[in-house]
């Protein structure tokens, strides 16, 4: 199951809540304001590193670019809308609005 998070972790508990429920192996994709979570060196970098031990973590590249985020946490994979589609092809989706 693919989990998407679209709100800033500074502004919403969505990421924190999602992480509590996500099952090992399930991919997590950050979109929209959610991508602030993976900016390198912020307050949530440890949480992202912990999440990556069990889940692959993606961020929507167009949303990173729109927000001027060029430096993301290690091993976070930037993907386009077509990569988003590929993930949806492979997984049911759980959008943590």
């Amino acid at each position: 199951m693919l989990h998407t998070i679209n709100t800033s972790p500074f502004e919403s508990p969505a990421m924190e809540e999602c992480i509590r429920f996500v099952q090992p192996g399930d991919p997590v994709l950050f979109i929209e304001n959610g991508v602030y979570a993976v900016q390198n060196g912020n307050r949530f970098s440890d949480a992202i590193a912990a999440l990556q031990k069990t889940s692959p973590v993606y961020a929507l590249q167009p949303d990173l670019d729109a927000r001027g985020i060029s430096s993301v946490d290690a091993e976070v994979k930037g993907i386009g809308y077509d990569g988003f589609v590929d993930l949806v092809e492979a997984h049911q989706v759980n959008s943590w609005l």
Partner: protein
Amino acid sequence: MDDNVKKIMHVMRRAPHGSIYTYEGLEMILIMAAYEQDLSVAFIGDGVYALKKNQNTDGISMKGFAKTFMALDGYDVEKLYVDRVSLEERGLTEDDLLVDVELLDSAEIGRRMTEQDVVIHH
């Protein structure tokens, strides 16, 4: 199980009255119940407030709907899961809730989420 019966989980995540998501979410659940799908409802984060007893909306001139959750049983929506952590950090216990629910750990709710065909957050 019939191919046309889908496992659909509704996840209530917002507090009631401050926004309409919980109320319109409940309207959606009631309609879907008529289609005899395999429905469940999880209450996570501020979503647990939807089930708080003794809500009286007269003073804000809005329709109350907390009691509609009590009617879900009559629509065969019987799988109501409440996230234990969410309840506890809000200083609430099962006694504060209007309806009988399954109090579950986050990991268990997470497991049931992965079994779904559709998950809709409200």
